[in-house]
């Protein structure tokens, strides 16, 4: 089970923290900075930039994406 804490400024993502429940029931937080930007933020980067209309990179699966950030954000209505 994952808990996801999201910090949003306007519609811009500024921080995300994923916590996992360990056996003792205590949260261990793990910053997901090193997971890099899933496509959500790449797209946001492109959309926010006046200069690019998209980003080309190795393809990601929607399953992998949902496991990371996007699923939680969609649930939050972002």
């Amino acid at each position, binding site marked *: 089970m994952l808990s996801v804490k999201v910090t949003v400024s306007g519609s811009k993502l500024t921080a995300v923290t994923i916590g996992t429940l360990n056996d003792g029931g205590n949260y261990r937080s793990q910053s997901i900075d090193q997971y890099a930007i899933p496509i959500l933020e790449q797209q946001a980067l492109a959309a926010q930039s006046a200069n690019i*209309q998209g980003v*080309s990179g190795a*393809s990601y699966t929607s399953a992998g994406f949902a496991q990371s950030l996007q699923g939680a954000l969609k649930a939050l209505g972002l």
Partner: protein
Amino acid sequence: MATVTTPRVHRLFHREEVMGTFVTFDGYFLSAVPHDAHGALEDAVGELHRIDRIFSTWKLESPVSRLRRGELGLGEAPDEVREVLDSCLTARRASGGWFDPWRLPGGVDPTGYVKGWAAQRALDRFQRPGMIGAVVNAAGDIATVGIPAPGQRFRLGVVDPADRRRLATVVEPPGAVATSGTYERGAHLVNPHTGSPQALVASATVTGPDLGLCDALATGLCVGGEDALPALDRLAGYEALLIPFHGAWKWSRGFPFAPDTAPVRAR
């Protein structure tokens, strides 16, 4: 679906989950988005789902899955399967043998071509008279037509394989761009000559008129690295950029870097 209005250019945007990933559509108009654009979008989206039902190796009963298990003969498969496999023969030759869907574990697997091919077909259905430009972006395989605004060209970032939060560079492709790398899905690329997993560069980006072929060539280049680059010289209109795990980038002479990001040769 959302219609976004910006000064002088109106945009139709849609994101669809299909083929195990996300595909986005962007249509650019100089006046309000016409009604028939939404119908064209539906057609294009429907085409992606239709292709997915035929080709998905994740769907156990798709014609391609059954073909791979030997339950279906090629002659009994939908026409598109033969069309795609023909195109894969061409792509195999064009890639110097580094893209070879017949040498993958589990049977013939044209996935490295199909996503780009599908997105290109979707763009062909999506684009309408009245659009000044359009983009279909299938998880980083991107097909474009026209321009995003008067006096501008489409500019597409390329992900830095060492840090996915950053862009390595920006390209202005004549049509399409595809990138292959292992940094998203892990070791999924196979050397057709040895049968073993291999990726000699961190990412390979190919630009050119047809996204399916760009997709296939990028896959081959990621597996074969520099050895796979000379084959591209024989192919008019296709250019490539290789970003290695360490050391200097290599690119074909005509690779369409955006003017403001063009690196000097020593990079």
